[in-house]
């Protein structure tokens, strides 16, 4: 041991009480952490002290109701979405060989999943022989994927630069690429896997459905709802859509019923005639988006359970931001705790650096 080090030891070793302080500090923080652990974790989810209240839907929130039993898989909505939003074609991996385009050769748009080029996609479930529509066994069913426009969106909660925002009136979740830093925390956090980034572009952007807000501003329908021939995608106020979803899930097989098209209220995009149809497959009682993670403005009904349609089920009824923001707001409420800790640290550092002649 060097002489220097020994002299250091001697000077500070004189204060034996400091050792006691250190030991007590460690013991104290251990006890505090253990106490925090048991109180916080032991609390049942609904009475979690750290959770902030969930955010309600704006009263005039708008969205879509997708009815899987009405969907015929024509993908007109996928094409309309591309046109209205000026999105490029997305060639699936299997089609790359003969469908890669180039020059003025036409390219067949064949997206299989949401991507930075595809804001809306129809996917198919199939099982066994795949003979019967809307049957989980030996059948098939369609599902439409696009942003669900959450009441309490994770993507808005995580965005450090307010690039992702929720419209106070319509509730539409918007993205502003000019503010975005491209951290992709929204991509990571979305419980439904919606926002996407273009990894093949040196200046890639985050892309997601914004419910064709530019169309709505002209009193026109979102592209998908506008072209849907069967009314499988229906536009409207979320409250109206929820009531319609409840009506449908209560229908019995063999009932003859009316299905509207376009805007459920007949205002946006002008009035359209609906159609009458027999209910051929029994609806699930589950309305997807009614309760999932604080509720979403876009809803779905189906005859096939939603877990089979590759949607996350078994998720909590409160959005994840209620917890993450709750933790953060508790620790940093009014910046009181950090300020207090800083005051204590500054006092100790000030006192103790006087003892150390250097640094």
């Amino acid at each position, binding site marked *: 041991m060097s002489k220097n080090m020994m002299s250091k030891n001697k000077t500070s070793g004189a204060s034996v009480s400091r050792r006691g302080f250190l030991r007590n500090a460690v013991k104290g923080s251990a006890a505090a952490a253990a106490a925090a652990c048991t109180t916080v974790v032991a609390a049942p989810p609904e009475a979690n002290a750290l959770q902030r209240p969930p955010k309600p839907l704006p009263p005039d929130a708008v969205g879509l109701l997708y009815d899987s039993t009405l969907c015929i898989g024509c993908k007109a909505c996928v094409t309309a979405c591309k046109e209205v939003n000026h999105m490029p074609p997305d060639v699936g991996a299997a089609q790359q060989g003969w469908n890669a385009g180039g020059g003025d050769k036409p390219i067949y748009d064949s997206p299989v999943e949401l991507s930075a080029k595809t804001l809306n996609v129809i996917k198919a479930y199939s099982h066994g022989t795949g003979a019967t529509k809307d049957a989980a066994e030996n059948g098939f069913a369609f599902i439409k994927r696009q942003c669900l426009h959450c009441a309490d969106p994770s993507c808005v909660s995580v965005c450090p630069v307010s690039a992702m925002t929720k419209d106070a009136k319509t509730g539409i979740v918007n993205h502003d690429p000019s503010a975005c830093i491209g951290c992709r925390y929204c991509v990571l956090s979305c419980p439904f896997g919606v926002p996407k980034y273009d990894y093949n572009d040196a200046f890639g952007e985050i892309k997601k459905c914004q419910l064709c807000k530019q169309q709505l501003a002209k009193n026109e329908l979102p592209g998908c709802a506008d072209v849907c021939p069967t009314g499988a995608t229906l536009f409207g106020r979320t409250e109206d859509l929820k009531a319609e979803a409840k009506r449908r899930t209560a229908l019995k097989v063999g009932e003859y019923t009316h299905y509207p098209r376009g805007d459920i209220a007949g205002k946006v995009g002008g009035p359209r005639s609906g159609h009458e149809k027999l209910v051929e497959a029994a609806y699930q009682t589950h309305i997807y988006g009614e309760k999932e993670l604080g509720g979403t403005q876009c809803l779905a009904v189906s005859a096939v359970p939603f877990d089979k349609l*590759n949607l996350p089920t078994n998720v909590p009824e409160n959005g994840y931001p209620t917890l993450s923001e709750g933790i953060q707001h508790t620790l940093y409420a009014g910046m009181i705790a950090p300020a207090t800790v800083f005051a204590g640290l500054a006092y*100790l550092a000030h006192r103790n650096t006087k003892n*150390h002649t250097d640094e």
Partner: protein
Amino acid sequence: MSSQAHEHQPLGGRVLTLPFLICAALVAVAGVILFQRYTQGLAAASNLNDGYPWGIWVAIDVVIGSAFGCAGYVIALLCYILNRGEYHPLVRPAVLASLFGYGLAGLAVLVDLGRYWNFYHMMLPWYAQPNSVMLEVGLCVATYTLVLVVEFAPAFLERFGIEGLRAKLNRVLWVFIALGVLLPTMHQSSLGTMMVIVGHKLSPLWQSQMLPVFFLLTAILMGFAIVVWESVMASLNFRRPMETPVLSKLAGLMLVVASLFVVLRFVDLIVRGQIGQIFGGPQSGWFVAEMVLMISGLALLIPKANRNRSRALFLSASLLLAAGILYRLNVYLIGFTPAVGPWHYFPSVKEIMVTVGVFALEIALYLLFVKKLPVMHAVHPEHG
């Protein structure tokens, strides 16, 4: 203590040694890959995708790299807040390691950001989104990097003989020391809070409201472990005497923190009703690996005699570091499953080489600094 100015001294010696040149070559390789990344997009250099938008550049370079940078945090805490003067010789090397750990974590963020030219929006109040945990982490890390520069400035000023400024800085250094303890406490815990919002996508083995506590504990533990590790490495490579007496005290603290981590991990799993997940649940092998590393690392330190053996100290510090690394990797990558699948991610060779390049740059700069600046505690030849 009579000659304060010579308390620290540059190690001297050749700069262009073989390890330095190897590091420089690795940095150059990373530079070529980064050219592709900036001209062709993230996919040209990585396997990042929309299922796994965060890969090793976030999990290793930033989340684990910043924990490597916690040496300065824990040593400042011990030396100046708890007034344990015997840790004084460890301050400058620790602050230097932290400066590089954090500085390069910040650099790695710019590699990963998809719209990096907008990064300064994080600092502009009119873009701020106060609910974002990432905003808090970003601002905290940026401020802390500046604090580290100030904390390391005395070594610079001493080397270039700028005594007037040095004396002035010394009078206000306590403010920066206090900040240098507060800020890592905030952002290291928040690195855990950041993954709370991914909810069900993180395996119940790791998803917990206790994430901020576990991240703070691993930051402190890895801070201690990296100090021990670096000290032993420096003693071996620069033929300096072992700092074992000081290190053995750190070992006692490592034992306390590691034990606390393990106990709280199990309490948390039991209280959440997820303890069954450790027996054959998905990814349970990674949990077991994490615990085996942690428990074997702390078990080595239980016999007091081992805390005075540099070999045992080194092995234990290595195991505990590995445990901390694996815990953070589990939370950010291995335990994560995208919402709507299937997606796959394993880092590409180019992606790995960029991470290697970042750490090589850190080592190369560290070697350069300790040779040219008064970082290491002076060793008197008659005792050496």
